[in-house]
C-alpha cells in the first residue's frame, strides 16, 4: 500500500480515538498552499509545451460536466433524500465541484505505477471547480435579484484555491520547463512528503465529521458513495469521447467523482447562508473523500482500463 494512504489512515485512526494529535492550522495552510502551487505549476509547464487551442474541446467539455453533475445530484437529494431546497442545492454544488486533495492523491497513485496521464489536467481541475458553485446558487435562489453576484464572483474567482492554482499555472506557463527547474526541489521533489502530512491532517478532519454523519443517517452515507461512482462513470465516458489516455481517463473520472470541501463550502456559506454547512461537509469530507482516496481511485483506474479496452481507440 502507498505510504501516503497510511498517513491518512493514521490521521483517521487518531481522530477517531480522540488523540490530541493536530497539525497547527498555519502548517495545514502552508501544506495546502504548497500542494495547490505544485499542481498549478505542473499543469502550467505542460501548457507551455503545447498549443492552447488544441485544448479548447476538452476545456468546454469539462465546463459542461461541471454544470451537469449538480443538476443530476439536486433532484436526488431533494426527492429521495428529502432535504430542504437550500441544503440540496448546496450539497449538489459540493459534488459538482472538485477536491484538489483527491486529485493530488490520484497523481501520486498514477506516478507510483508509472502510468502516463495528460499533464494539463490541472487546467481542467480549475475549470471544473467553478460552474457547480454558480449552479448551486441558482438552484437555491432561482435567478434572484437579491443575489449579490459581485460578491459571489469575488468569492469564486478570488478564493485562495483558484488564485493559487491559476497563479501556479501562469507561472509554470511563463517560466516553462527550464525556468522552473530551480524551484522544483521544493514543489516537485517534496510533493509526496507534503501530501503525506496533508493527508494526516485530512484524516483527523475526516474523523471529526463522523459524529455529524451519525446524526444525519444512512441516506448521506449512500449518497456520499453512490454519487461519486455515478460521476466517475460520466467522467470516464467523457474521457473516451475526448480520446484521453488510460491515465487521463482515470484522472477525469476522479475529477468528476471528487467533492469539494474548501472552495464550495466557503462560497456557499456566503451565498446560500440558510443551507446547513454540516450536512454537505459530513457528506463531502466524512464519506466521499475517504471513499475516493481508499477505494475510489483504484476502482476508477480499473474502470478506465476496462473502458479503454472495450471502446478506446
Amino acid at each position, binding site marked *: 500500500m502507498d505510504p501516503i494512504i497510511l498517513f491518512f489512515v493514521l490521521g483517521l485512526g487518531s481522530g477517531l480515538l480522540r488523540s490530541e494529535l493536530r497539525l497547527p492550522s498555519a502548517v495545514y495552510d502552508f501544506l495546502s498552499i504548497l500542494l495547490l502551487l505544485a499542481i498549478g505549476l505542473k499543469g502550467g509547464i505542460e501548457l507551455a509545451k503545447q498549443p492552447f487551442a488544441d485544448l479548447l474541446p476538452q476545456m468546454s467539455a469539462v465546463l459542461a460536466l461541471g454544470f451537469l453533475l449538480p443538476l443530476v445530484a439536486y433532484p436526488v437529494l431533494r426527492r429521495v433524500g428529502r432535504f430542504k431546497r437550500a441544503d440540496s442545492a448546496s450539497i449538489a454544488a459540493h459534488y459538482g465541484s472538485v477536491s484538489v486533495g483527491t486529485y493530488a492523491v490520484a497523481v501520486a497513485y498514477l506516478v507510483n505505477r508509472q502510468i502516463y496521464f495528460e499533464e494539463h489536467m490541472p487546467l481542467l481541475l480549475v475549470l471544473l471547480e467553478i460552474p457547480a458553485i454558480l449552479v448551486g446558487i441558482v438552484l437555491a435562489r432561482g435567478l434572484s435579484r437579491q443575489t449579490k453576484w459581485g460578491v459571489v464572483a469575488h468569492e469564486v474567482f478570488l478564493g485562495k484555491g483558484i488564485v493559487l492554482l491559476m497563479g501556479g499555472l501562469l507561472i509554470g506557463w511563463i517560466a516553462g520547463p527550464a525556468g522552473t527547474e530551480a524551484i522544483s526541489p521544493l514543489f516537485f521533489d517534496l510533493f509526496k512528503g507534503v501530501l503525506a502530512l496533508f493527508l494526516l491532517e485530512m484524516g483527523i478532519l475526516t474523523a471529526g465529521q463522523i459524529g455529524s454523519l451519525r446524526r444525519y443517517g444512512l441516506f448521506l452515507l449512500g449518497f456520499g458513495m453512490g454519487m461519486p461512482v455515478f460521476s466517475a462513470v460520466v467522467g470516464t465516458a467523457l474521457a473516451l469521447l475526448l480520446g484521453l489516455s488510460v491515465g487521463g481517463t482515470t484522472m477525469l473520472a476522479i475529477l468528476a467523482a471528487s467533492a469539494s470541501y474548501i472552495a464550495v463550502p466557503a462560497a456557499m456559506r456566503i451565498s446560500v*447562508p440558510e443551507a446547513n454547512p454540516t450536512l454537505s461537509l459530513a457528506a463531502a469530507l466524512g464519506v466521499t473523500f475517504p471513499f475516493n482516496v481508499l477505494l475510489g481511485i483504484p476502482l476508477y483506474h480499473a474502470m478506465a482500463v476496462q473502458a479503454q479496452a472495450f471502446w478506446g481507440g
Partner: protein
Amino acid sequence: MVIHSRKLLTIITEAALEGTLIRDVERLGAQGYTITDARGKGRQGVRNAGWEASSNIRMEILCDADTATAIADHLRQHYYEDYAMTLFLVEVGVWRPEKF
C-alpha cells in the same frame, strides 16, 4: 488625563463572514476594528479552527453608543438566523476620544 467613556462591541462569528463584516461595520460608522482568530464551543457546536470551514473570528470595535447600536441591529437582522454569532457590549474608558 481625562478618561472618556465609549463602548466595546465584540462579535464572535464564523471566519467566512470576515470580508462581509468588515464592509458592514465600516459602512455603519466604525472607525477601526481588531480581528483575532478564535476557537470555542457554542450552540452551533465546537468550532476548533482546525481549518477554514470551522474557524471563528473575534472582532472588536471601539465606538460610541449610537454606532454600536446601529452595528448590533444590522448584525442581528442579517446574520443571526443563519450564522453562528455571539455579540456583547461593554462600557470602556479611552484616552483619545477622537479615534473612536
